[in-house]
């Protein structure tokens, strides 16, 4: 079995998603002990909250008001995805290698009214730890999953996509259509 995918053994609760300008979103989060029961519960809660949020492909702990380097990702249903590792959670993740930058427009549940053009690597290697087992894993990915991982790692560092928009005219009001 891939060490990236573990049965957390707990039921996740759906948590409220906090929005900017909440301070927790702009503050670097501390690393966690991935084997700690509260981190395992947080991991399950993040997945549960992601699952019920339409269009959500990733969620980081600061987005549910918790300062912790934990996030979940699942880009498997997104049309821009090439490589997908399904649903997984990483703790204390860091970018090991990043290359082939491309600019694309991205949004965030914590900044629901704006989108921004952000340049991100499309080839990415990320290292982190899996909740419950604490196993160290290396994820090599590309395209949309690479973008999602960088977006979530940024959350854990207290950065929003707003901090990376590509220019004064790279920020856009999200249009709503009835």
């Amino acid at each position, binding site marked *: 079995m891939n060490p990236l995918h573990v049965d957390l053994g707990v039921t996740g609760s759906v948590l409220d998603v906090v*929005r*900017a*300008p909440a301070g927790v979103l702009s503050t670097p989060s501390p690393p966690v002990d991935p084997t700690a029961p509260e981190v395992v519960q947080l991991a399950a809660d993040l997945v549960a909250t992601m699952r019920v949020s339409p269009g959500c492909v990733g969620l980081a702990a600061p987005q549910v008001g918790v300062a912790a380097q934990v996030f979940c990702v699942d880009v498997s249903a997104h049309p821009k995805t090439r490589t997908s590792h399904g649903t997984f959670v990483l703790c204390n993740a860091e970018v090991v290698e990043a290359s082939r*930058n491309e600019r694309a427009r991205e949004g965030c549940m914590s*900044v629901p*009214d704006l989108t921004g053009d952000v340049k991100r690597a499309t080839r990415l290697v990320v290292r982190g730890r899996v909740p419950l087992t604490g196993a160290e894993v290396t994820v090599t990915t590309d395209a949309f999953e690479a973008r999602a991982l960088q977006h979530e790692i940024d959350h854990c560092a207290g950065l929003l996509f*707003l901090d990376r928009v590509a*220019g004064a005219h790279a*920020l856009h*009001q999200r249009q709503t259509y009835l």
Partner: protein
Amino acid sequence: MTSLAITVLGHDRPGIIAETTARLADLGLNLEDSSMTRLRGHFAMTLVCAGPAEPSDVEAALSGLTSDGTLSISVLAVPEEPAVASTGTPWLLTVHGADRPGIVSSVVAEVAAVGGNITDLTTRLTGDLYVLVAELDLPSDVDVAALDAAIDDVAARLGVGATLRRAEADDL
């Protein structure tokens, strides 16, 4: 040579750009640099044109657009600005946080204090979130780390976050 700076501001509706630009074209004006957007729902157009028309001719040609009272238009003759190559370096500044008076003035004062020139700036207020993104030219002798620290200091006092990054251009 003189150019014309034209602003069109007011209630947004379909056709403002089409009508304005058609009348400018009828006068033989060449539409050069422009910005056309909506600011908190208001239509806001600023453009610089070149051509043989006088400001009064343009005002007369555009008067039909203002007849219902929802748009205001100004036309101003402006001297042509020579293109100046910057000797500095390009930077991007992002500031975001809870809205309050004075965010822009406090932060840009730090940029001005080191002789930095803001070449483009947009702000957005959405709910309680205020976002500023500015493109800067910084003189080559500016201590960027010190400026970054000064901006961080001001931002902390305002309770907002600031990020200063080198602007990247990928030449292909």
